[in-house]
């Protein structure tokens, strides 16, 4: 085997054989480059598709969040309207059962202290 190999190595190639081997090696090279190119393209395509799919999921999640926030906002708006309802306030103040004011007196205190106690 070794001999055959050595013989092969030491053998002087003919011109045709040289051309043939060049052709085979360049063919192999193109094949390799093509394979690399296809692999890279495939990889790029998969990456792009995956990224789009992920973006699609993110968008759907964002839309879902928006819808939930919009619902929440509507609920709060209604709650605000309920709290501002004057009939509601009237009922709430009636529930407080406070003593109604029949008469009020204003006290004028010119000094810095709210009520100096004079005259009491």
């Amino acid at each position, binding site marked *: 085997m070794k001999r055959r190999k050595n013989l092969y190595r030491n053998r002087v190639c003919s011109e045709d054989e040289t051309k043939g081997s060049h052709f085979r090696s360049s063919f192999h090279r193109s094949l390799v480059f093509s394979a690399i190119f296809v692999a890279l393209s495939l990889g790029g395509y998969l990456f792009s598709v995956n990224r789009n799919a992920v973006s699609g999921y993110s968008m759907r999640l964002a839309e879902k969040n928006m819808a939930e926030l919009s*619902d929440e906002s*509507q*609920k709060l*708006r*209604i709650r605000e*309207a*309920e709290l*501002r*309802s*004057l*009939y*509601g306030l009237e009922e709430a103040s009636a529930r407080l059962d406070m003593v109604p004011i029949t008469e009020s007196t204003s006290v004028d205190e010119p000094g810095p202290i709210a009520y100096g106690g004079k005259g009491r």
Partner: protein
Amino acid sequence: MRKTVPQRRRGENKERHGRIFSLVLFLFLLFSVLAGRLFVLQILRSDEYGAAAEEQRTVTKVLPSNRGEIFLRDAGGLSPVAVNRRYSLVYAVPPHIGEGKETARRLSEIVGVPEATLEEKFSKTNDPFEVVKRRVSDEEAERIRALALPGIGLLPEVYRYYPADELLSQTLGFVGMKEDESVGQYGVEASFEEVLRGSGGAVSNERDAAGRWIPLAGRTFEAPIHGANIVLTVERVLQYEVEKILREAVNEFHADGGTIVVLEPKTGSIRALASLPNFNPNEYAKAENVEAFLNPAVSLTYEPGSIMKPITMAIGIEEGKVHAGTEYVDTGVVKEGGYAIRNAEEKVYGRVTMMKVLEESINTGVIFVERSVGNSRFRNYLERFGFGQETGVRLPAEASGNMQNLKNTNRSIEFFTASFGQGITVTPLQIANAYAALANRGILMKPRIVERLLFSDGRSEEVPPEEIRSVVSESTAREIGGMLRNVVVNGHGKRADVPGYSVVGKTGTAQVAKRGEKGYEEGMNIGSFVGYAPLENPEFVVLVKIDNPKDVVWAESSAAPTFGKVMKFLLESSGIPRTESERKG
């Protein structure tokens, strides 16, 4: 004779040809039938089968539109009074329920439906869907969700909700079920149903045998057009205050009910519209009487009584027949057509001016004015003031009022009684709008309840004020205003006055016509006061009508002080500067 070989062959050939011919004919007929059938199916009935196939392989989902909301004017913006609120529907899938009794017990504590009822629903194992309860609140839904009961689920539902409760209820109306559809009933909900409803959309897609949508297949999409939001001319706080004052008056005088109308004379905008009895639109099904849903301000008519007298006087002044200083001798009675018309309490005033006629509300005085004008012209003026026809306010069931008695101009008795507001019927809005014309330099405006529409695509459409016609001249309007001021200062309208402001107006105590027969009810009356302020530049026209007050006879004791409270609040809360120093005495 034996056949030769060629003869035998010819015979065989003939037979063979015959069989082949028969076969070909048979095949031809067969294919003809098939071709004919194909022609029928694919050409003649292609539309029908195409549609059937389309329907079979297409699934369509309806996209409902959102109903528009209704807003009132409020300090700093708008206040919603009709909104769409999400509730939940609790349903059960009986075949999936494990422990029926236990599930019923736990669910009953939350939804309030009796356990026995729930157990009965859960026992229907052949039924895939049973409604447990509708309109469940968020808190209840959360509690049900937390229980995670097998076979129990929640679906979202949207209902109409009125967060301000009974505020402006008759004007708003409500959304109820009609023939399995939610539609607006009464009020703005009904009259603007098309605007509020919008129109639904749809999405169609091809589906596979399992009913799933096929991605990338033909899809058609039509977006829903949501309903427009409506902004009313009514102010929230003002409306509440007016309703509160009306409620206090009705309680104080033990009246059957009442109505208050507040108008802006320059634009015809309705700033408040209150009537009692009213109802809560969130609980419309609980209303004892459907009459509570009607809006008395626009739908119910009454004989206005003496508040018609300034209208008659304005007509006389406009025709140049009388002016404030024109004198007339009152004998206390006018006889016409076999009838005798007297003044209230059968008083006799003697020689009086037209100013005094309004101040003392003298029936015979306004008959004098009407006689001067003439029946036909008097009727024409009433029509020009808007009586006997709808105002066009765009609220449902608006009444025109009744002026049938004035058809025959030869029956003067009808015109005499009409001159002081009896024998004809009007709506509260009509009479308030007529006074608004006097306040607005004689120009009649169309009352408006909607200020603008806000469409879902961002457009905004203003509903502009609309001038109908000039009824009387500015000078007539000014003269009448002065006479009405005298009514408040010296006449029966003293309790309607607001210190510091020149308030003008007229009282009216009208009899109530019997229903279904002639004559008037004994012991019943309607007290009204209508006026405007400030005289120099009127900002508000107010009409107060108290139905059948007890313990008081005259409107100066019921409607007039109620008017005063309303006008005081209006003028002071609007920051309108005082127009006169407070009078003493």
